[in-house]
């Protein structure tokens, strides 16, 4: 956190809808969550609430809807404190979208769920159902009104949860990571819906590109303190501020030159390309994997899988992975990506040829696949169950039958690889999202898998966590299979992309070809390029900003000399802002400002200054 702890000036807004004064809140364990928060929010504002994991964002929006009560200070809504009857009434006007939609869909069917809010408002059943159907229609789920929430995909659940709020016609929408783990199509749907929303909107997200499109004001929290309150454009354009708060996502905006893309492109699909042109001997941790011949590490031929109820999940999968390759799998939610991973890990058994290192995987071999393949799950809570970090990393090594000395050595190495040195005695449950993700990675890396599988590694991470994870994964010399909707990670980490759709691999092509092929995005409903426009705008903002400095200008403008007002060319020295479009070669390095001499600027008190008359 940078030094900026003077009392934060409250941005004045006309007739604030929310007024927060000196808000303090501590968690039950007495650790401070929010300290001296002062904030006014006007009706109709669209606010991005940003900050690192653990900065107090979720706690703040829970205060805004009265789920938590302040320890000190006051939260006012419509000029009344959020307490008692006013709180009960206000909750019906303030909609809170939770991060996990399963938390929010507690009724038997989508219709019941969407109608729950209106019924609580006292609307009769018929009208409530009409409002619910209308809201479901808005989120394109009216054709599933009588379906149980547990039968929906994640994206559908997320939209259904939003429908439950929209049916209440709320004045305020509080959104906690609305687009986390969504595929681009679902994300775009959310963007369209929220873009049309007319009320006050307060959105928490680590995705600043999404926030840039959605919001116009940004509030930055850091360790429970309100650090900044400015426009979203100001937020994204100030890299140093972003960096100070762990929010610098600018690494995502770097445009790789076409030459360098070509240089990391693989050989024709199925070839024995190795990451960054390294030699054919690659290492996972310090183990040596030698791709001595052309035998693929994994080879699937006409592989099929049906769920127990008979539904075809995978059909005719042909996939060859050579040791050292870095492959990404993309596709919409439900395309069969996770099922394919389950088959590779031996958790599911399909039909067809499955060879590992040239040897066909039989029933008995399937149970030993874990020794050669490791996977980091999308939700790392699914694979962290031990009471300490050390125990977590040791778990797999004990199953492998390693000696104690070997286990200790590998634990140290794995934790060092993911920058978790000194965390051995920590409880995984109490660690931040980014630390837990790295711990999950360490627990897999310690086992030195031949194939490392990462399922949505960036889910729920803040930009600093993402950048660190990217750096760690880039440094790994391992055969990689990455499943992600995050096109930046796909581009940065892999050289070959498999496009999956309805249980089939539609395309298998070099990553740069995939990136340049908009047809593929449209083919399976994924618009991977939709964020490019915002990214370009932010890139411009980050390089177009004001510098204030003293300089001379020979120029003309209206000014006064006592009673006389006139304009003429003259030269004088004064300080004013210049807006420049330029490149920053490095944070602290010198850089040039392209001359931009013709611009408007103020001359306060200029009539009393001396200047030449030409």
């Amino acid at each position, binding site marked *: 956190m940078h030094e900026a702890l003077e009392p934060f000036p409250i941005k004045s807004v006309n007739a604030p809808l929310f007024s927060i004064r000196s808000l303090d809140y501590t968690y039950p364990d007495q650790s401070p969550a929010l300290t001296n928060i002062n904030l006014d929010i006007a009706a109709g504002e669209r606010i991005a609430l940003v900050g690192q994991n653990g900065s107090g964002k979720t706690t703040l929006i829970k205060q805004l809807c009265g789920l938590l009560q302040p320890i000190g200070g006051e939260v006012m809504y419509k000029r009344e404190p959020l307490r008692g009857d006013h709180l009960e009434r206000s909750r019906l006007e303030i909609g809170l979208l939770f991060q996990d939609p399963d938390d*929010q869909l507690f009724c038997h069917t989508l219709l019941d769920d969407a109608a729950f809010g209106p019924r609580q408002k006292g609307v009769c059943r018929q009208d409530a159902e009409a409002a619910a159907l209308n809201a479901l229609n808005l989120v394109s789920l009216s054709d599933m009104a009588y379906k149980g929430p547990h039968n929906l995909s994640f994206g559908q659940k997320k939209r259904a949860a939003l429908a439950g709020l929209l049916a209440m016609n709320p004045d305020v929408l509080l959104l906690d990571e609305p687009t986390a783990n969504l595929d681009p199509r679902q994300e775009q749907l959310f963007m369209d819906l929220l873009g049309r929303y007319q009320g006050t909107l307060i959105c928490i997200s680590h995705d600043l590109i999404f926030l840039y499109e959605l919001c116009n004001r940004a509030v930055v929290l850091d360790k429970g303190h309100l650090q900044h309150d400015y426009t979203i454009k100001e937020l994204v354009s100030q890299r140093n501020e972003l960096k100070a708060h762990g929010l610098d996502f600018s690494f995502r905006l770097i445009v790789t030159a076409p030459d360098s893309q070509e240089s990391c492109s693989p050989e024709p699909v199925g070839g024995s390309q190795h990451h960054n042109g390294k030699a054919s001997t690659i290492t996972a941790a310090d183990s040596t994997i030698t791709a001595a011949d052309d035998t693929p590490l994994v080879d699937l031929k006409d592989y099929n899988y049906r769920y127990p109820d008979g539904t075809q999940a995978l059909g005719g999968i042909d996939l060859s992975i050579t040791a050292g390759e870095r492959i990404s799998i993309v596709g919409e939610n439900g395309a069969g990506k996770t099922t394919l991973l389950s088959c590779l890990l031996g958790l599911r058994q399909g039909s067809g040829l499955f060879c590992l290192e040239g040897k066909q995987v039989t029933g008995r071999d399937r149970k030993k696949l874990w020794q050669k393949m490791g996977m980091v799950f999308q939700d790392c809570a699914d694979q962290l169950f031990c009471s300490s970090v050390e125990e977590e990393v040791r778990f797999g090594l004990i199953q492998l039958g390693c000696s104690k000395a070997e286990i200790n050595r590998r634990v140290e190495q794995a934790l060092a690889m993911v920058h978790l040195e000194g965390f051995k005695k920590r409880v995984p449950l109490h660690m931040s999202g980014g630390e837990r993700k790295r711990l999950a990675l360490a627990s897999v890396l310690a086992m030195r898998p031949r194939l490392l599988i990462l399922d949505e590694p960036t889910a729920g991470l803040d930009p600093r966590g993402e950048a660190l994870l990217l750096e760690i994964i880039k440094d790994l010399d391992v055969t990689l299979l990455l499943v992600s909707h995050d096109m930046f990670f796909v581009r940065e980490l892999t050289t070959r992309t498999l496009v999956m759709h309805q249980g089939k691999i539609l395309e298998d092509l070099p990553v740069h070809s995939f990136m340049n092929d908009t047809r593929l995005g449209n083919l399976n409903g994924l618009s991977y390029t939709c964020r490019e426009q915002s990214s370009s705008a932010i890139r411009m903002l980050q390089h177009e900003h004001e510098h204030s400095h003293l300089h001379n200008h020979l120029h003309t403008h209206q000014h006064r000399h006592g009673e006389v007002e006139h304009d003429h060319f003259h030269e004088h020295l004064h300080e004013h802002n210049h807006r420049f479009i330029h490149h920053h070669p490095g944070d602290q390095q010198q850089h040039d400002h392209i001359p931009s001499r013709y611009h408007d600027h103020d001359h306060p008190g200029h009539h009393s200054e001396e200047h030449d008359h030409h």
Partner: protein
Amino acid sequence: MSDVTSITMPLWQLPVIILLPIASVAALMALLRRISLIQSAPEEERDWSVPPFDDGAGTSLLHTWDVRCKIVTILIHSFVVASLIHLKPAICAVALSLTILAISRVSLVKVVMRLVAITGFISMFLIIMPFSAPIHHGDTVLIFGNMGWASFNLRGVLLAVTIAAKAVAITLLMEPLLSTAPLPVTLYGLSRLGVPEMVSQMVLLSYRYLHVFRHEASRMSSGMKVRGFRKQSDMATLHAVANFLGMLFVRSFERTERVFDAMRARGYRGSFPDPVELSLRGRDLILTGVWLTAATLLILFDRILL
């Protein structure tokens, strides 16, 4: 016990008598399970924009019956069936249940799955009771070879079959009870009958989140498997399973808090909105009367005529 009829049979017939029924029941159940799986596979996605037929929008007598009458009647009928002593009335009860199944037009696949679920329970009775039933006057027992200590009492078989018939008769009624109205409506009916509303809400939420917890447990189990965990009978397994259960409990507890928060945030103040408006009609009472009369006839048949 001179009036006990003992029939001595060769020892080799013992496994035939025991294993053959077990194998037959197992094969039948496997077949039913297979059929139910195939039948339940979605050939094409049903239209979820309209209320499903077996979730309360059906037109059968049971679908349109007042849920309170339905619950009371079926529960009373189930108690009556459970109290039957003789096989013939129990078989009549099965026939009555089958008739109700036909009238209610519920999913046969679900009925079969319910029957499969009680197979183990029934099989245990069919195997154990013939050997464990005390020998009374007039009983007929089969003795295999020299194994006089393991006599096969035919009265035990009769008793087991009677219990099985009663269990099947009651199980067959569960689908008409639970699938002819949405669960919230059934639970609402229960609360209108005096069951505390909090209990109904807890059942409703448990049903909703059972799937979520099952998925979480399944994902965590996969997370352990991919790191080599295999269950063994040792302390390490015990330790890992304890960690697993502890973590599942923590996650479930945290989710419970979040769900409650989500409910409060949408205006929950202790009660769910009524899912329907219940009104008692004459035909509901007539149907209740007819059914309870049938139940009374069953008990009369059992206790007086036999």
